[in-house]
């Protein structure tokens, strides 16, 4: 698939503050590319530049070969966006939203009507077609916005935190919509701070922190950035109490099994499968709470950045 979206050394400065610091990515057509990172990492700034809503301070970016600065009007014909925390107008129905959006994009009324009905049906909004949005749940409102964007059949869809605030069922619904859209050969650029969302949806992803990409690739490529480690042992040591000192395992002992990351009140030991099994047994023998799982993107993030997504822990 040819490259549909690309950015080279994209920078955005607000005075002395750098919101984006030389971001470069390439996104192939017909794929989902996710930008994963904590709040304030620069994800929204990046997608707003790509969506022609914000001018970059330096660097170049293009969509389908059109420069997002110099050829913004061309870019706009090929993209559609769902901004972060957008919400439909309360007194209007999902159908009215989609219809208005399509006509505002230049479709004639009869085509817009039939396409609006089509998308409302295919996104399971048929029952709510004529219900005003103030009567809809958060998930249905978000689906209304996604219906607007998807109804355009734009080549590139930009979704900024499309599932924020949704319950798990509604979130999976949105995931399915995204998968269906991409299956028709379209491209999606999305931002999220949910690890499982990035893993479940993206063909390729970038972990963003403080305006820069700290890791990029498929989720398995990114997990492979921790050499020798396949598993994580999460050790939750009890603090000492007035009754006596709780049984603890020294950090030095933990470090003998692999790299130790401190994440909140827990310690994460990145180790091999055999090491994980051995350490888990040691913890159980000493009555220390423990869990074992495979390496996740969050572990890579903590390892690279020294901080949890949404947290402020540090590596030891």
């Amino acid at each position, binding site marked *: 698939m040819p490259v549909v979206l690309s950015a080279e050394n994209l920078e955005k400065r607000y005075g002395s503050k750098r919101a984006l610091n030389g971001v470069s990515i390439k996104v192939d057509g017909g794929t989902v590319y996710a930008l994963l990172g904590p709040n304030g990492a620069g994800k929204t700034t990046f997608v707003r530049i790509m969506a*022609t*809503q914000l001018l970059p301070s330096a660097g170049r970016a293009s969509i389908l070969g059109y420069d997002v600065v110099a050829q913004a009007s061309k870019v706009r014909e090929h*993209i*559609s966006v769902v901004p972060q925390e*957008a919400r439909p*107008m309360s*007194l209007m129905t999902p159908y009215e939203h989609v219809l208005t959006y399509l006509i*505002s994009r230049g479709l004639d009324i009869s085509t817009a009507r039939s396409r609006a009905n089509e998308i409302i049906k295919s996104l399971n909004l048929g029952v709510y077609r004529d219900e005003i949005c103030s009567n809809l749940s958060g998930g249905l409102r978000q689906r209304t916005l996604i219906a607007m*964007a998807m109804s355009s059949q734009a080549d590139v869809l930009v979704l900024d935190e499309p599932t924020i605030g949704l319950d798990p069922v509604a979130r999976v619904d949105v995931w399915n919509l995204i998968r269906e859209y991409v299956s028709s050969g379209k491209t999606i650029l999305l931002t999220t701070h949910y690890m499982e969302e990035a893993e479940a949806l993206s063909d390729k992803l970038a972990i963003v922190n403080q305006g820069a990409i700290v890791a990029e690739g498929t989720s398995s490529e990114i997990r492979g950035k921790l050499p020798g480690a396949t598993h994580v042992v999460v050790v939750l040591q009890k603090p000492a109490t007035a009754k006596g000192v709780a049984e603890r395992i020294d950090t030095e002992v933990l470090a003998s099994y692999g790299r130790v990351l401190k994440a909140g009140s827990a310690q994460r030991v990145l180790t091999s499968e055999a090491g994980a099994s051995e350490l888990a047994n040691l913890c159980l023998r000493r009555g220390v709470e423990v869990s074992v799982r495979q390496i996740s993107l969050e572990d890579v993030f903590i390892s690279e950045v020294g901080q949890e997504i949404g947290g402020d822990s540090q590596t030891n």
Partner: protein
Amino acid sequence: MAGIRRQIRAIAALIWFDGYLPIRRSPFNVVNFIVNPLTILFFIYIFAGPGKAEFALVGGLVAVIVGSCIVLETEAAFIRLVARLQDMFVSSPLSSISYVISLSISQLFNGLLGIVLFSILISVYSHLNAISGFEIGLAAIITWASVSALGFMISTFARDLRDLWVYSPLLTVLLSFLPPVFYPITLIPAPFRFVAYLAPTTYPAQAMQLATGLISGPPSALALNFLGGALYTLILVFLAARFARWRQK
């Protein structure tokens, strides 16, 4: 040509969405925009008699347009900051001009009842002919354009909707009730009349008073008021375009 047709269709769709549908769903809203002008008409009629009440008809028409259009400051800010739908339109083939025009026309739906009512009353009591009718229409358009541009410009400075809540009632007073909209400018002492011309509504209100024969002046007076109103509008449109946050820097 096809591009222009597309933009006109887009404007019509957005007016339907942002102007017609909200009024259809909450029709009582229109009453809000007519109560104050009717109250002033009532008091002028009671205290000054039917002759002076004709000033209140002209003033009422201007005040209804001001009241409904100045709401654009809150509406545009709401769509940009709260609903965040403006960004969806920015990242689409819709032009910024079409967007602003459609929001501006949409707000007129708020005052539609008042505009129709005061227009009928003016035409009945002022015995309008085609020319004076056209002049009143032109003055009404200048009022709409200048107040909409002002409303849109103010909306661009808002960081939060609460920044704007105080402005609509304040601006309605400053644009409709204090300037010579409900009364002739000659009631203001001559040394202070220049202050009245700081309000963009003074020019179209004067033009309407001239067109209906409520005040008289040299033949150039009407043209000068139209010219002043149009210039003021152009300045406000320029400033609104200058500060508009369509694509941010």
